[in-house]
């Protein structure tokens, strides 16, 4: 559906490359969560995909019509037009006609809960309502690929829920989406895969819901008992004891977990915190980005 091959890009006059050897492959119906700190290269990737920039080297392969639906971070509509007039304008610009036009407009209005606001001037809407209109205009376009850049920034949780639901519906219908956000729970909610960028390089490209090995999380009141550390040396494939007192470990096999429980029960003190679960996106992100969020 969309392939980026070894893309390199430097902005004119910049002292370092914005992107270095970035490759990715996105299948139809897939949603990619694009993550990275400010300046990591997310916007550059989106700009190259949208054709706003040409790579210095490498290639973007986007088969089909090449139509891209865009939801920029800024509110890209006319504030002196009503919600209906804005949607009509962009429907004309997207060359939507006839029943398909009506059907698509109706669908976006319903998905973004704008039914009761159609006659209102866009400039008179609340911040959350304006965000919903911004998303509706972007998703109104029949496209091969949708790019959503911080689509929910600055809005309350209810409005965020509405926007994410609209995006999720789009993905469920087989549309392909690249979604950037600083809110990791949002990415977990909509994305199938994550691509983490740091300083223009891909740090992580992984399916979000793959079976990550379970990890043990233990926090001890004062000093971690030596017996526990010895246990980890023999039963964990990797483990670390962070400065904040939290011990994280990946056990070699699940059978070690009951042994660990028995060992913990033999100790004089009880642990403050004990978990055995798959790591979340935030932990993956922090680990891959070296702590930058």
């Amino acid at each position: 559906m969309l392939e980026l091959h070894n893309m390199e890009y430097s902005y004119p006059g910049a002292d370092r490359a914005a992107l270095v050897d970035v490759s990715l492959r996105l299948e139809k119906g897939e949603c990619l969560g694009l993550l990275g700190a400010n300046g990591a290269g997310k916007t550059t990737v989106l700009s190259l995909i949208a054709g706003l920039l040409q790579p210095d080297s490498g290639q973007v392969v986007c088969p089909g019509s090449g139509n891209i639906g865009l939801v920029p971070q800024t509110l890209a509509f006319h504030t002196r037009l009503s919600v209906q007039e804005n949607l009509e304008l962009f429907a004309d610009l997207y060359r939507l006609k006839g029943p398909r036009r009506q059907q698509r407009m109706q669908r976006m209005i319903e998905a973004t809960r704008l039914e009761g606001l159609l006659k209102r001037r866009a400039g008179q809407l609340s911040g959350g309502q304006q965000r919903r209109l911004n998303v509706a205009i972007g998703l109104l376009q029949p496209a091969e690929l949708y790019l959503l850049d911080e689509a929910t920034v600055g809005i309350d949780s209810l409005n965020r829920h509405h926007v994410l639901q609209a995006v999720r519906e789009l993905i469920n219908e087989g549309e392909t989406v690249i979604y950037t956000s600083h809110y990791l729970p949002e990415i977990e909610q909509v994305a199938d895969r994550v691509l983490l960028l740091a300083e223009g390089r891909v740090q992580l490209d992984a399916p979000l819901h793959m079976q990550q090995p379970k990890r043990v999380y233990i926090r001890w009141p004062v000093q971690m008992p030596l017996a526990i550390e010895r246990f980890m040396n023999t039963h964990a494939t990797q483990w670390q004891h962070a400065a904040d007192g939290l011990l994280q470990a990946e056990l070699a096999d699940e059978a070690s977990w009951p042994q660990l429980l028995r060992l913990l029960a033999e100790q004089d003190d009880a642990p403050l915190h004990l978990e055995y679960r798959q790591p979340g996106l935030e932990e993956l992100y922090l680990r891959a980005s070296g702590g930058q969020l």
Partner: protein
Amino acid sequence: MRLLALMRTEWRLAWRDPHAMGVLFVMPALFVLIMAHAMSGIIRTDLPPLQLAVEVPVSSPASEFFLAALQAQLPDSSLQSDDPVVDARIRLPDDFDDKLLDTPHQGPTLSFAAASDTLQRARIRNAVILALAQTRLAAFLLDSGLLDEREPLSSRLQHVQEQTESRLPEYQILSSGSLAASANAGQLSVPAWLIFGMFFIVLPMSSRLQQEFQSGILLRLRVIRLAPLLLLVGKLLPYSLLNLIQFAALLALGCFILPLTGLPALELHGSWQAYVLLAMCITLASCSFGVLISALARSSEQALLLSAGSNLMLAALGGIMVPKSMMPAAMQQLAELSPMGWSQDAFLTLLVGQGSVADILPACGSLLLFALVCALTGTFLLRHRLRNTLWTSQN
């Protein structure tokens, strides 16, 4: 479909922008009314009555004749004003009667009030000279027996007036170029502020485009591969139509509203085709200038400063604020550099010179050339800028 959608949107946005409407219609209309009244004090076709005090130390038939002749020259003015502040005092000499036929002749003494202007002084001086000449002619005719002393004063005056006055056939020479000197207040003010208002189309045009750059609307349009030329045409056509409406509305103000305020109505001489041609040339020049300013400005603040600043400069240079006829020769030459000056010249050619389409062709040619240069430069710069519109909000 896309072009129609863009035009419809631009049209709606312009009419819903109260600032744009204020700048395009309210501001020039107010300027027309205020400046036409202000100019009417300087450029008058009906001269105001004067307050004079004629002092006659020794009354005589000759002094009575002089007073009657002077009153005939200044029919609305008062010669024996009780007002303590008069425009001038005219004192006849004690021996006025005796020395009328002397050569050289010593006439009455004129004392002007400090506030009386050059025009008033010249008017009084001319009236006194003519009345004095008629009085002296009457004395000569009496002395020669050609005028009967027993005739009533009015009859004698009429006789002398017939001897001294000639019919002067007057014709208006159709002309073009700088005719500001012979225009009245309405003929100067209406076109001047109409042109100024039309060129102010630059302000909403450039401000809107900056907002679209900053909001990300143009980014959206770029991603859907909308041709920059289509975008420009979609903006230019509605603003051109708005310019033409301004032209018609402000001319109508001059023709129908100005007389209600006590000033003469603007009379539209010449063919309607000439006015249509002129309206289209000014529209093309102002909208193309708008494209150039839109391309040069990098923010709404810059758009405001560049639009207002350049318009004020062109207006000051082009004889909009001060008529060219009141400028020194060097400034009048500078005025030839301003498209507002060319527009004003063409307007006066029609209104004052009663010119035709052919007479305004040179001015229209200059306006079209200006439009072409602005449009080409502006389009080139805008295309470049649109091509470099990046994802971020700051472009």
